[in-house]
């Protein structure tokens, strides 16, 4: 029996992957779950495990090919066992069904292929009782035909706003078109793009409890980014092709800005004591742990402690309520030459300063080497961005959805500061800038959170645990 292997869904919103290298050549024996190819995507690099034991057959795509999720990549011949119960993708990323395409509607909850049989039409002629028995409804009572889905997507329509005129209240294509016409007549001036993105973002937001019930994941949906303003290319202009990472960043940033009302604030932190502690311990730290002691673990440690005190900053907005996250999974923004990636330091609240330093170093090394795994970039609950490493002093970051806030530690610079007793002293000052989702938090908790971080950092002394 020959089995065709397809490109797995390698993470949320990943739509394609590049076959970086074939690890098995035609004719090679392959064990079940053994890696057969290296794949890189806009987010991560991964290896595709074999769904069966057998012999590698034909490579259907050469190395370097970009393959959409679900696209066929190779065959495995002479498979002796049943296809593994788990799809190749589930071996890598639990909770994501590869059969659910990126285009599926989260409102629907079921793929189109599983929609009820088209019997309701015939039932229309029967008694009302019969027709309601065969009501064209999906799991959530909304049976959407492909045409309705397409129009809703195109015109950014919230289908809950429409009363269906079809059989058993089904929303028809005509209903959507009439609704769009009414809506657009009422609001003639622009805004369509914004609405589209809003609707897209709303659909992309994870439903409440999604994390608690990984067995029934929400279908992953690729929201349509707002359409670009038409531009013309002049002589001498250069068009730089979009990499998958560029596209993903563009999509994410647009969606985030349209999803969360961003509020911004900043505190100044006196890092002089941290700088001294760091200088004192640096050599010993390097000797003991093999990595340089940077400012990052100090700030990370203070942030984690502050998040414990102010859990509404370690949270996610849902329509049912604000979901306070139990774990602190700290996202660490890593700048790359051609983009940006945010690996996640899982269970950061359980790590010591040294543990944080080591884990952060490992993540940023692997991010720069393109060696992140799927699980390294998922599940973040709060993001810390060390923009100061780039020399900036005041930054306005965009929230990493679906988190509640993002904190930027800007450059530490020596400045004259008025200190106790109205004296002027040279201190190592750092701006801590926070962008927070104003739906979840107001200025008060955000400011309290910042002050909590500030106090911890300014209280660092010889007794602070570094090891």
């Amino acid at each position, binding site marked *: 029996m020959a089995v065709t292997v397809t490109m797995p869904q390698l993470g949320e919103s990943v739509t394609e992957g590049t076959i970086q290298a074939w690890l098995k050549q035609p004719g090679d024996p392959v064990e079940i779950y053994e890696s057969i190819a290296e794949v890189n995507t806009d987010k991560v690099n991964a290896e595709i495990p074999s769904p069966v034991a057998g012999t590698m057959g034909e490579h259907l795509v050469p190395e370097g090919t970009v393959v959409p999720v679900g696209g066929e990549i190779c065959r495995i011949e002479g498979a002796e066992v049943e296809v593994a119960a788990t799809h190749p993708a589930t071996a890598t990323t639990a909770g994501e069904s590869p059969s659910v395409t990126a285009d599926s509607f989260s409102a629907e909850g079921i793929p189109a292929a599983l929609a009820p049989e088209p019997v309701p039409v*015939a039932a229309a*002629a029967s008694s009302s009782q019969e027709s309601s028995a065969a009501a064209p409804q999906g799991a959530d009572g909304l049976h959407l*035909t*492909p045409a309705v889905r*397409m129009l809703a997507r195109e015109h950014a329509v919230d289908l809950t706003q429409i009363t269906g005129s079809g*059989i058993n209240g089904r929303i028809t*294509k005509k209903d959507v078109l009439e609704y769009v016409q009414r809506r657009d007549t009422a609001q003639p001036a622009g805004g369509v793009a914004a609405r589209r993105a809003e609707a897209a973002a709303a659909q992309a937001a994870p439903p409440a409890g999604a994390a608690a019930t990984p067995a029934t994941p929400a279908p992953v949906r690729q929201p349509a980014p707002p359409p670009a303003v038409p531009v013309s290319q002049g002589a001498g202009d250069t068009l730089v092709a979009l990499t998958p990472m560029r596209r993903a960043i563009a999509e994410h940033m647009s969606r985030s800005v349209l999803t969360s009302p961003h509020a911004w604030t900043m505190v100044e932190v006196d890092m002089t004591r941290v700088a001294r502690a760091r200088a004192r311990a640096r050599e010993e730290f390097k000797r003991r742990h093999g990595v340089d002691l940077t400012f990052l673990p100090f700030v990370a440690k203070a942030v984690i402690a502050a998040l414990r005190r102010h859990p509404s900053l370690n949270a996610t907005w849902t329509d049912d309520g604000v979901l306070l996250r139990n774990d602190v999974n700290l996202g660490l923004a890593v700048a790359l030459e051609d983009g940006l990636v945010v690996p996640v330091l899982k269970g950061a609240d359980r790590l010591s300063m040294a543990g944080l330093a080591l884990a952060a170093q490992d993540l940023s090394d692997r991010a720069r080497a393109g060696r992140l795994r799927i699980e390294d970039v998922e599940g973040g609950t709060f993001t810390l961005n060390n923009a100061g490493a780039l020399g900036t002093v005041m930054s306005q970051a965009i929230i990493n959805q679906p988190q509640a806030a993002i904190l930027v530690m800007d450059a530490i610079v020596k400045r004259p500061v008025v200190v106790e007793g109205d004296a002027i002293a040279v201190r190592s000052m750092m701006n801590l800038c926070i962008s927070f989702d104003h739906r979840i938090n107001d200025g008060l908790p955000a400011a309290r959170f910042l002050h909590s971080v500030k106090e911890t950092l300014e209280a660092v002394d010889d007794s602070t645990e570094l090891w």
Partner: protein
Amino acid sequence: MATKTYIEAIREGMRDEMARDERVIVMGEDVGVKGGVFKATEGLHKEFGEMRVIDTPLAESAIVGVAIGAAINGLLPIAEIQFQDFIMPAVDQIISEAAKIRYRSNNDFHVPMVVRAPFGGGVHGALYHSQSMEAMFCHIPGLKVVVPSTPHDAKGLLRAAIRDPDPVLYFEHKRAYRLIKGEVPEGDYVEPIGKARVVSEGSDIAIFTYGLMTHFCADAAEKLGADGFSCEVVDLRTLRPLDRAQIVASARKCGKVLVVQEANLAVSIASEVAAIVAEDCFEYLDAPVMRLGGPEIPGVPFSPPLEEFYMLTPAKIETELRKLAAY
């Protein structure tokens, strides 16, 4: 423009082509002196003589076989099968020979032949004078199948069929012969094979049909139009090759599709149209594709009430359209 019946248009088509090109000949049972059982060839024998309008023995295999030979040797024969029901003995000639000769001979030979045959029920013809067997031929690569619904198209498509370098099956709905009248332009016009015709434009339901059903569908669509549902009626005209582009365009525009044919539905033109819509229009569909056709029973019944039950009517089509409109 003069108003003519469907059969007059067919007769004129043959006559004009015979006058235009002396390679065109007509052959079949009683097509000569009698002028055909339906009078489709009336007057041709007198005008063009027995060398070009040939009465044949009652042997369909021979009629088509001889026509194939004549076609390969440079004539443009029109072979008439008295009723499509009787085409069976000629099927071997049509499928095994006519359809394959160009391919088999690597383009050395081809068969510029037309096989005309009346089909369809509703004329109290019972089992052996009422069938609609077009789907059977549409399955065969190498054949073209046309079914005109109006006098205009009957003449224009017949001309195209005669001038086509390969075998064309030209099926005429026998009930349309004298029931359907319409304007037929003067002069040498041709309706292209492979192009459907939009009978009436609409935006809610696309109806794909052909032959006599085109008129029934237009009537039913008009009824729905009175209630604010606009139907786009598309006369397929050529059943092989189907006008895929028009099918896709109309289906996408409307999002709801009804395919109507007199023949039973299993493995039929309606099946093929539905498949095309499923393949190319999935995202645009706002309802399941619906098909309406004859029942799956071996023949059109003889008993008048049963024949009435069997045959489609504008009212039956309207009922289906209303289900689709309500969906």
